[in-house]
């Protein structure tokens, strides 16, 4: 019991510190929090708010706006922070303390997930307050789907952090994962606007699957209608999760 309390306190102290640090670096605030809100506002203005098609437009792509936050955090913030900590030998300093790697990864996952969830709440509030967007479907089911997409995208980010040999490569891999997914998955340009050929390619991307799931659930679909997507996302999370734990290193040159 005492040991459990010690562990919880450790997790809370480290998470609070990392959370403060992530707010102190403006990148995360800009890309994770402000950008998704800006997109919702722009779409709302273009399509004319509640009297025009604004609410409907936001409703059609609601999952996509949330995904922007998930991607900024999971494919940029998370892997870049970890590889930066490795490059700067911050992880090496932790390697000579009793800290367990799972504690450090867990803290990063938790803190970055909080940023993504905060972004999702702001996006939802913006849509609801300014454009009278009314989500359908069960909120519990939607949150479950959201967490699944989050875990799946985050696992890709963790994998990048583990596999990249230095911070520069990590930055490159992050861009390779982030920008195509962001452009092609319907986050910025609606998925339906692409020609059929591009749609076919884009549909393969994990983020597209996630967004289709979120859009489906938020317009009242049941989980069972998207079972293939759920399985794909879970498989990605499983595979990438195992790879990142197996290849975890404290230092670049420890091999």
């Amino acid at each position, binding site marked *: 019991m005492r040991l459990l309390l010690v562990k919880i*306190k450790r997790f809370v*102290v480290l998470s609070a*510190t990392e959370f403060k*640090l992530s707010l102190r670096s403006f990148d995360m605030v800009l890309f994770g929090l402000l950008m998704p809100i800006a997109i919702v506002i722009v779409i709302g203005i273009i399509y004319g708010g509640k009297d025009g098609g604004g609410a409907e437009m936001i409703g059609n792509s609601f999952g996509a706006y949330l995904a922007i936050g998930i991607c900024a955090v999971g494919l940029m913030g998370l892997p870049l922070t970890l590889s930066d900590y490795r490059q700067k*030998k911050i992880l*090496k300093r932790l390697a*000579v*303390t*009793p*800290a367990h790697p799972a504690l450090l990864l867990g803290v990063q996952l938790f803190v970055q997930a909080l940023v993504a969830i905060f972004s999702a709440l702001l996006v939802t509030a913006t849509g609801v307050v300014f454009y009278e967007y009314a989500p359908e479907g069960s909120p519990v089911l939607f949150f479950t789907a959201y967490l699944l997409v989050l875990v799946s995208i985050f696992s890709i980010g963790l994998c990048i952090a583990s596999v990249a040999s230095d911070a520069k490569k990590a930055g490159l891999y992050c861009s390779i994962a982030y920008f195509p997914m962001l452009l092609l998955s319907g986050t910025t340009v609606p998925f339906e606007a692409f020609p059929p050929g591009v749609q076919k390619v884009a549909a393969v991307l994990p983020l597209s699957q996630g967004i289709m799931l979120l859009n489906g659930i938020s317009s009242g679909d049941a989980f069972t209608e998207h079972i293939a997507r759920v399985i794909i996302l879970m498989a990605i999370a499983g595979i990438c999760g195992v790879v990142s734990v197996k290849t975890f290193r404290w230092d670049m040159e420890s091999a």
Partner: protein
Amino acid sequence: MKTTHEPVLTVDGLVKHYGPLHAVDGLTFSVEPGEIFGILGPNGAGKSTSLECILGTKSMDKGRIRIMGLDPVQHRRAVFARTGVQFQDSAWQNGIRVGEICAATACLYDPEPDWRPLLEKFDLAKRERAQVSTLSGGERQKLSILLACMHAPEIVFLDELTAGLDPLARRDVWKFIRGLSEEGTAVVLTSHYMDEVETLCKRGLMLKNGAIAAEGSIGELIETGKGKNLDEAYVNIMEASV
């Protein structure tokens, strides 16, 4: 009554290659509880590499390391619960404050150490709210020693402990290290300042091109180098042809 101490650190036949280069070539020594042991040598002699192989943060090619009887790679968490380390190249999270790094480090240990008295002792208490990046080189050095020692470890490894310190701060750090030793903590330090080693250490070894060029008590080191003091002996040993 005589008590026999198990050595708190034993290094047995440590070898580390970088390709054909022998960075460390057959290092063997042991350190007793409460002893201050110096590893001396010029830059590039293999001091830091030896330290990192001992700690397990670098892999070694041959050798057997025991810290408090445990293999530091296999029993990493148990070993480092009671071992402190200050690396030469300490780095910090961007934007982190002194108090935050202290709290985040302290929470890793059980029982959680109280770091505030140490902050006072190192004259850093007024800098608790300052970002680490705004500290002077000397203050940062003191902070990294503090972080290595806050959990009252049984053995501390300090790599170039007074690099960047002014003479007064240096003397404070020496006093602190002696205090640790009197409380029974073993200290392994690397240095190329002979006055520091002569003041602090009872025993040590000199590394040259990764191999031991001299070892023993400070008196024995001076004798081996045929010098009037450690400084002269060191120069003689390092300049002697192999």
